[in-house]
């Protein structure tokens, strides 16, 4: 009798769950660190002086023009070559965070630059300093504007986390491959893993829509 998929799934449940847990942790860490870094990148691209701006321009262009897989491999092998021994997990998260930061940086820059100049002028005219103008006038508007793109990037990060399997991080994809190498049910288990990725990203998207609704300005 051939073992059923459900039996195999039950046997592999802990392995799958640990893979899923790792995938979620990698994605969360990368999104979090990448967003913090990305906001800094976006601010530098928007408000940086003649020295800062080109530096970050080059940074984002290079990162955005590089395949994520290359970033992951570079982060892992280059770091060990130069003597900073990052474990695969850290190296992978670093690569994804850097990738995320370049996208978030562009999103933040776009969001801020899309705000009409009249907003800053009106804020100045009532005596707000630049810091206050940014905090109360520009940032809240930019946030609303780039939320959808940001959610999109977050979902991209979950997908990109699969690339960490190539440097041996036991996230969901690598775990799935392990399981398949034992039971040869490739179709079923790849399909199942795909469904899990879909569920995670669907959750992110729903959450984004929810925040969008909550913060929408009535008109």
């Amino acid at each position, binding site marked *: 009798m051939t073992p059923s998929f459900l039996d195999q799934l039950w046997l592999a449940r802990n392995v799958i769950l640990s893979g899923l847990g790792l995938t979620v942790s990698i994605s969360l860490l990368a999104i979090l660190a990448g967003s913090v870094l990305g906001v800094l990148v976006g601010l530098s691209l928007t408000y940086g002086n003649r020295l800062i701006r080109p530096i970050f321009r080059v940074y984002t262009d290079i990162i955005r023009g590089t395949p994520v897989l290359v970033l992951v491999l570079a982060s892992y092998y280059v770091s060990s070559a130069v003597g900073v021994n990052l474990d695969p997990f850290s190296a992978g998260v670093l690569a994804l965070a850097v990738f995320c930061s370049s996208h978030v940086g562009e999103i933040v820059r776009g969001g801020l630059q899309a705000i009409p100049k*009249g907003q800053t*002028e009106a*804020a*100045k*005219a009532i005596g*707000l*300093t630049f810091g206050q103008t940014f905090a*109360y006038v520009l940032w809240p*508007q930019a946030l609303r504007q780039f939320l959808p793109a940001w959610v999109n990037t977050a979902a991209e990060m979950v997908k990109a986390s699969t690339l960490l399997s190539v440097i041996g991080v036991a996230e969901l994809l690598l775990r799935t491959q392990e399981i398949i190498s034992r039971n040869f049910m490739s179709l079923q288990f790849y399909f199942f893993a795909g469904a899990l990725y879909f569920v995670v990203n669907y959750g992110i998207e729903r959450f984004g829509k929810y925040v969008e609704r909550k913060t929408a300005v009535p008109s």
Partner: protein
Amino acid sequence: MSKTILEIEGLRKTYGSLEVLKGIDCAVHEGEVIAIIGSSGSGKTTLLRCINMLEDFEGGTIRLDGEEIGYHAEGSMRRRKSEKDIARQRALTGMAFQQFNLFPHMTAEANVMLGLLKVKRLPKDEARAIALKWLDRVGLGDRAGHFPGQLSGGQQQRVAIARAIAMNPRLMLFDEVTSALDPELVGEVLQVIKGLAADGMTMLLVTHEMRFAYEVASRVIFMNQGVIGEDGNPREMFVAPKTERLADFLKTSSFN
């Protein structure tokens, strides 16, 4: 004559190689309502923007209540004041823009309160009371909780005027505040400005509404290619312009 509020001497401003203001001299006294007229591109907007330091300028001085705006002398050098000082000085003049520029993510009330809270650092209750008082004054007491996107252009402009005036500025600057409005909404905004004029608010208003300028202004300044072409009371200027330039300009303007 009453006290001088604003003193402009030799104001010069260039954009690249284009000299937009070529030496403006002008004193504004307390309670004066000055209409600034002139053809498009003559420098009217730029003049207002310099007074509020929304533009840096290369030459001359602007004094508000005796205090130099934007710059100070350091030995023989002219230095831009710190951003903090400039922000404080900007709060002394109110400005209303052609495009309203309300903060779209805030209610009408929050728009008016922002400067009171963050610049004047008033407690919330007090700021809200002042905001409501001014929204009431511009006829929008019942719209305090509305967002700009829920208001008509005329209503938005009135909120914008309330936002500026609530800061209790020494001087109000209006830059073609009715130009972006549908004709049927112009009247309600002009009515608000008339009310402020009657209260004795000192103001400079750039306008294409010649009839309004004639009725409300105590003085008219005609800007022509970056200089003041004529400066006088509305009756003399509209009825008997001294320069051909002004006569030509008035001929092409509509008095409706």
